[in-house]
């Protein structure tokens, strides 16, 4: 793709819009998450700050902005400040190839999913940097866990996505959406139920959400890799966590749930509805299941998800060959 001025302007505008989306998403999701937690535990959740507690998340972020910036002793300060920024920036790049609507794509590339999978690994590096730079044993242990978990769950995730790529015959995300129909029984979730399930489980593991939130398990590790971060550093980690959640939900919606296609009126609203439905499912999971042990976490992955995803890929390939 040539880099013309029009292209450049388009990408800059897209980046700004994506930043707005990320921040807005964090504000909305914090509210939804706390409300959902409240309803699941039979209490009202945030209620008094603003009408029905709606500006609670804004108050929290403003408070974090006003907190003391703190550098603990014996800290590698360059890495210490770099880590939260590094957690935040790559996510920006990952949103570029997502087709929100038919024409609403920031960067039309032929191998969009490759770009996403390649750069998703950068988020883990920021976790390692945070754990290492903060010179704290809990931070380091949390970072080590984050790496083990992320590396493990990336493999079944790729395998599950690969099965869909086989069916569509393309790595282009728009193409994959175009191959699916408008009605729910024409979506990939019907043709690839196992892949969808595997992708969903690894998505929870990949974004470090409960029940797989081992890197920040507070009963064992205080707060994991962001133990030493106060104020805005912590807020940036939080922001990137929610942005990552949104990203994997968008990928899920694109690959398995028909993207921007819906029964009536195709358009970007369908992508958003589907992605937020997946997000709500993740929140629901978090407040329902207890945290797994670390060996259980890796056993689920290596003993179940990986063989199943390989089997799924195999069967897909054979069936496709016969249909030809």
């Amino acid at each position: 793709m040539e880099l013309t001025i029009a292209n450049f302007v388009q990408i800059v505008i897209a980046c700004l819009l994506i930043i707005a989306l990320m921040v807005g998403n964090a504000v909305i999701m914090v509210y939804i998450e706390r409300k959902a937690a409240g309803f699941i535990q039979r209490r009202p959740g945030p209620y008094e700050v603003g009408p029905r507690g709606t500006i609670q998340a804004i108050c929290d972020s403003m408070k974090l902005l006003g907190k003391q910036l703190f550098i603990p002793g014996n800290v590698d300060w360059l890495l210490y400040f770099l880590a939260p920024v590094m957690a935040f920036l790559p996510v920006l790049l990952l949103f570029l190839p997502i087709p929100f609507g038919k024409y609403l794509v920031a960067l039309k590339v032929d191998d969009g999913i490759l770009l996403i999978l390649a750069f998703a690994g950068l988020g883990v590096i920021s976790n390692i940097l945070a754990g290492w730079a903060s010179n704290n044993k809990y931070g380091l242990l949390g970072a080590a866990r984050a790496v083990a978990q992320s590396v493990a769950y990336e493999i079944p995730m790729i395998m599950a996505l690969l099965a869909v790529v086989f069916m569509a015959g393309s790595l282009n995300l728009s193409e994959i959406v175009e191959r699916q129909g408008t009605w729910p029984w024409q979506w990939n979730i019907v043709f690839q139920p196992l892949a969808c399930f595997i992708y969903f489980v690894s998505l929870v593991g990949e974004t470090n959400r409960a029940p797989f939130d081992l890197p920040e398990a507070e009963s064992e590790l205080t707060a994991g890799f962001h133990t030493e971060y106060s104020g805005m550093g912590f807020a940036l980690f939080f922001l990137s966590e929610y942005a990552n959640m949104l990203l994997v939900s968008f990928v899920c919606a694109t690959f398995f749930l028909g993207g921007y296609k819906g029964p009536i009126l195709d358009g970007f609203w369908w992508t958003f509805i589907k992605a937020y439905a997946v997000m709500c499912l993740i929140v629901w999971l978090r407040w329902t299941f207890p945290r797994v042990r670390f060996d259980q976490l890796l056993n689920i992955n290596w003993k179940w998800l990986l063989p199943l995803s390989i089997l799924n890929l195999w069967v897909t390939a054979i069936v496709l060959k016969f249909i030809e």
Partner: protein
Amino acid sequence: MAATEREEGTERKPITKAEILPPIINLKPLNFFFDVNRAMSIWPITFGLACCAIEMMSVSMARFDIARFGAEVFRPSARQADLMMVTGTVSKKMAPALVRLYEQMPAPKYVMACGNCAISGGPFKFENQYGIVEGVDNLVPVDVYVPGCPPRPEAILEGVFAIQEKILGIRFWPRPEEIPSPLAEPKKPKAAPDKAESAKA
């Protein structure tokens, strides 16, 4: 050389007061804005010492629900917390850990002494008592005292409001005595006066 003397070069520095610089931007509306936000999201640190901690747990559960006022985010790490609820008996063994946690919290930080033990030693204040710190204000500066053994969860909520009032100088929520109590004036049965009036007429 006496045992209490230190080796040369390892003398303790005299304790000095921290230098507090005036804020660079000191606008009243801006300060007020940040204060409102601080008051509306007080995150306590996950931290309980004795029986009073059970009341702290119940204040975050259904029925009382501290989440209504945005204060249910119990942070495990001291770096991300604003409020230290000292709920329970502070033993002398625990004191250094408590002071350390207090020192690890970043700047706008508040301490609530919950329960008689944290206020003054409570039931443990007697002659020849050797293991308990009599009052957490011997260790760290306390903002709000919540009495009771243990205090009711409503009292702990009231303590959070007191901290908000201390930050802002305004109380957002109505005071308990301003809310008309259903028990204060039992309603007269409606039918009786009606009958009396109709009889008069």
